[in-house]
């Protein structure tokens, strides 16, 4: 038992040191995982030829970089032969060149209210991983959700079809499929 207490003491002494050395602004691991999901989505959705004519694949974060820079770390990675670029947009009308728009769950109503849903050839992804129950009410074609202790994807096939996009068989196999909305 004496060693057990010694260990507890060591942990207590070490804790504050660890706290101090964790640098502010460091990208969180969870955000890196979320960003990896978004990157795979970009690769596994099929865009029509006219949407593939741009030099870069533009991914946009609505209102704020709620992934803490994790998606920006992936800039330059190839998406269908084009480099990924990442930027933050303030309003839906700024999303004209965005092939993918990532919307935080807390901003989803604002996005919807501002007329952000329904654009052709644009994939709207809702990040619902912080929500108690992950459902997007059809505002996004794809939702990133919590599935137990893991992250998962929900694809709204109707919203995807409205956007004129198709998902690869690999993506359809791993995602939960729903059909919601008009």
């Amino acid at each position, binding site marked *: 038992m004496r060693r057990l207490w010694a260990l507890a003491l*060591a942990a207590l002494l070490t804790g504050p040191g*660890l706290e101090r*050395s964790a640098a502010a602004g460091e990208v969180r691991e969870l955000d890196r995982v979320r960003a990896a999901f978004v990157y*795979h989505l970009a690769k596994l959705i099929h865009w029509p030829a006219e949407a593939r004519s741009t030099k870069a694949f533009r991914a946009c974060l609505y209102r704020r970089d709620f992934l803490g820079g994790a998606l920006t770390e992936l800039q330059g990675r190839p998406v269908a032969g084009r480099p990924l670029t990442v930027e933050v947009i303030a309003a839906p009308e700024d999303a004209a060149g965005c092939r993918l728009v990532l919307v935080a769950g807390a901003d989803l109503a604002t996005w919807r209210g501002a007329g952000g849903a329904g654009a052709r050839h644009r994939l709207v992804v809702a990040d619902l991983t912080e929500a108690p129950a992950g459902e997007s009410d059809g505002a996004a074609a794809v939702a990133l959700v*919590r599935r*137990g202790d893991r992250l998962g994807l929900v694809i709204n096939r109707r919203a995807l079809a409205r956007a004129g996009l198709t998902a690869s068989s*690999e993506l359809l196999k791993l995602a939960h499929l729903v059909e919601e909305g008009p």
Partner: protein
Amino acid sequence: MPPPSRWSLCCALAWALAASPTHGADYSHLPLAELVDLEVFSAASLLPTAPGRAPATVYVFRRDDLARLHPRTLGELAELVPGIQTNQYRKRHTALWSRGLINRYNDKMVLLLDGVRLADFYYGALPSGDELPLDQMERVEVVLGPASSLHGANALAGVVSLTTRDVHGAELRALAGNFASRRAALALGEGGVQLYASALSRDLPYHRDRQSFAGDRVVVPAAEDYATLHLKARPRPSLRLAARYGQWRHPFAFIPATQDAFVEGERLDLSARWQLGDALDRGLELALDQGFDRAREWEEERRSGALAYREVRRAHRTHFAATGRIRLGNHLLTAGLTADREVLDRVDALRLFRYDLGFLQEPQFGDLLRGIDREALDGALFVQDLWQPNPDWTLVYGARRDHLDRYGDPFNHRLAAVWTGRAGHSLKFLYGTALRAPSLRERFKNLESDFAAPPLNPERLTSWEVAWNHRRGPWELQGSAYRQRVEDLIAEVPTPDGADEYFANREGNARIRGVELLLAHRGAGPVGVRAALGLLDADGADPSPGPYLAPWTGSLHLDWRWNAAVEIDLVVRFTGRRRDRNGFADDDPGGRLLFDASASGPLGGGFSWRLAVRNLADARSRDPAADFGAQYNPEGPARELWLEVFWTGRP
């Protein structure tokens, strides 16, 4: 007991971590199939880690795997894990023998259901049957090898971790089959609340003319019932609450014709998980569980129907755990403590009749256990450092000191080095120790004999392992080779006067070596395949567990999407020849070859169907009665056929 220098090293390691440079992992290289496998919200995983890169040998079954393989119980699923052999026990359940560690009561592994540990307090047994319906599960992970550095006592041969599903809307299942099987299950989910309920009623799925453990014909009534009710709520994203209630009633499957024997039990588990801070970089998870365990066994003399034996067992248990994580550069440090309080409320028995003696002159009443405190308070401290010096290497060191009221302060640790190549390869070097404290029955059984059993030591295991994983496209290959030494293996031994059985440590150390292989193909095409093979060799210890073990076991699964309306699945399970020591000539356990098949498909309107048959050829097989060698080998299940209709919809 470790030398003090080990602890100094541990503390020094913790200090050294504070100066390490920052390094972040890049998860975009992982295939999407591995990303969805990352456990990112649980303290148990410590770092987002796909099974192929985990510092242990892990076999994962996702929901779609469970649907295709259609196992209904954990015992059936375990037969598809290379390295696990299953054994039909004479009462009812299937015992899981992980990596050659034979046992009667499933007491050598730890089972977690959504992080809550489930085990019978008296036998130490994890449930492997219909008490745990697999259609409720999102995922089943089977970790083979020692895990006591994380999970403490009894994680000797591995961990089975089950994660229940969340549904959005409603799901309903109805099943009917032979052996008068009737089953219904309901799942509802809306907002942050999930409800699951199931009920099963049927006859025991064995041939009616089977032999009892005494060699005569079994004539016991066959009806059995199981029910489960599980409620989960997430009132806040950081808070998870759950209540699970289960009850069961079944006869003993291989009881002599002189009596009928039954067991009924119920279990209630309440749990709360509160997660503070970030899930991966800096956080704290608090867990509080309260469990209530009750069981009653009884026997009736067959001709008169008079009570022959009655046993009542009741206990409750409180578990608290705090696990903290902090990322420090390329280290992820985890530390935690646990506290467990167990109270035995009632553990007594009344015997009026014995199958070999008839009705007794004087009824025998007394405690099932003797020399035991009714209350135990255990605790543990553990630390783990997961260090990624570069993207290709992960080094893990974990250590745990337990304080067990009844067994002292054991120490266990593990060391893992995992190399991950860019071409989908990973190579693991694993070392670890583990311990199993004897169950209450093993250590404190009140013998029906004047014989005084010698003191019993915990079982200890040391393991070395090399494992390889490769994933390329739809192909997955997994292989491991291990060597383990087991000290103080516990075996059941008849008392010198033959009146009862007691438990004793075997002489010498058992040495077990094995190889496990898994090949799986999960493509977008119409055909999928999964093949598993386990090879095993055991010697040492007296008596050795070797004769009871099959030198090889395996399974082959083929799924064929015939068209959009029908999918066909075929499963072959095979076991090499086994011997036993019971001395009876007419109950050869031999080897076995069993076939399962199913067809399934959608019906429209949210309905789907599955027609399944298990043990298609109705083969009769026996498993060795791996106890003290004087019982007949029990027979495995007969052919089971069932039709299941499944409906899913939004309320």
